[in-house]
């Protein structure tokens, strides 16, 4: 990595990356991930409440990455996807436990907590969320 990160920058996002902690606006019902502390639609009228995302969603688009950035070289080829959560927010993450050729737009997926990457210089391991296919969707 071109800049070595202090532990603070990692620790700061633990509630979101490890536990999916988020917020919602009680005025308009919008959910925010990462959390916002005010609603840009409601501003002064915002009533922000904490919310933990369900972690279930579906794939909006995806790609198979062959040329990785530093820290991800050993993982290629890997799948990156944009996932729309049930609650509305969208996010970008790796898909795991699935073969690249089996990924489809619209595929239902769920969040899990994984190792993301490893810094070259000082060996810090970064953790966060990835998504994997929901094998037997609840009926």
């Amino acid at each position, binding site marked *: *990595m*071109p800049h070595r990160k202090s532990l603070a920058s990692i620790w700061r*996002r633990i509630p979101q990356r490890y536990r999916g902690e988020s917020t919602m606006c009680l005025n308009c019902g919008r959910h925010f991930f*990462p959390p916002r502390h005010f609603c840009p639609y409601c501003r002064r009228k915002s009533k922000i409440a904490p919310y933990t995302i369900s972690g279930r969603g579906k794939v*909006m*688009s*995806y*790609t*198979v*990455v*062959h*040329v*990785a*950035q*530093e820290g*991800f070289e050993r*993982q290629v*080829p*890997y799948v*990156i*996807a*944009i996932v729309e959560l049930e609650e509305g927010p*969208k*996010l*970008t*993450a*790796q898909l795991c436990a699935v073969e*690249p050729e089996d990924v489809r*737009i619209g595929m239902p997926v769920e969040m899990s907590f994984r190792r*993301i*990457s490893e810094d070259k210089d000082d060996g810090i391991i*970064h953790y*966060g*969320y*990835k998504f994997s296919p929901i094998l037997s969707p609840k009926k």
Partner: protein
Amino acid sequence: MGNVAVIGAGMTKFGELWDKGLEDLIAEAGAKAVNDANIDGEDIQAIYGGNMSAGRFIGQEHIGALIADAIGLTPIPSTRVEAACASGGLALREAYLAVKSGTYDVVVAGGVEKMTDVYSEQVTQTLGGAGDQQWEVFNGVTFPSLYAMMARRHMHDYGTTEEQMAAVAVKNHSNGSKNPYAQFPFKVTLEQVMSSSKVAEPLKLLDCSPITDGAAVVILASEKFARKLPQEPIWIIGSAHTTDTLALHDRKSLTSIEATRLAGRQAMKQAGVTPKDIDLAEVHDCFTIAEIMAMEDLGFSKRGEGGKDVESGKFNLNSELSVNTSGGLKSCGHPVGATGIKQAVEVTWQLRGEAGKRQVDDAKVGLTHNVGGSGATAVVHIFSKEVD
């Protein structure tokens, strides 16, 4: 507010310029533009310089002062602006506003990037800074992977094909083969693009713009000043700058760049033109899919038909609309902070009739379109030979 003219234009050759540093590049482009404008250094009142990431590419910030120093123009105000890959377009926009509003009469708009002083994996890492570091890049996103996801969704929704994307590269290399300033001035075939190595599926190596060193400068002036010069001015008749969320996933659509749509509409409204009035367009083809989306977002193609249109030859040199006559980012090269200014240089040359073998016949109105990151910034300008 008065009219704004381009009175001078200059650029370096684009490429891996091992023997030139950032200050050499901008000094060369600046001297060319000042000479082209037939003015003296004392005429210039302010500088706006676009640069994305000299801090990471060469360890140097304070780029406004560096440019003023390199061109020998201290103590005038010199402002570096940054909007990732749209930094050059944004410098043009700020210089335009400064003249348009009457603040200054003569302003330099420059762009420069020195990318090859670091290894290519570091370039990849640095370009990731155009996206969202915490919520995209942290999770393994590379810059091509963002456009790859737009491409995949475009294919899914509209039936766009990899061959249609490849057709963008073929066209732009064909144009670039006629541009002596281009980094890769040679043609490529559809087969070469299709069989190039995978970067982020469905994007392949020849769908992607290269790593480039280069600088470009245009000089803007008020109508009063421009009319005193021997050369014919080129006029900026429309200008717009818009933003959107930093992360691609937070946008309304994955198949359209909303910032482009808005900026294009605003600039055309100001200029009093419609897409049909435009003879040539330099658009932001950082990836081939980006040009296809730009055609749709700017109103040159119907929604979903950008791929078909490029494949049909509609955007070839001297067909319905000549797109990326310079070779675009793809063949001419993409020194990120310089690209938006290079687009203006190309359009200026085209409207003056100085574009040599790649000249668009009877070119009267041109458009430039510069995008930052995956679409969090868009800057659109419209140029004309005539002005009211």
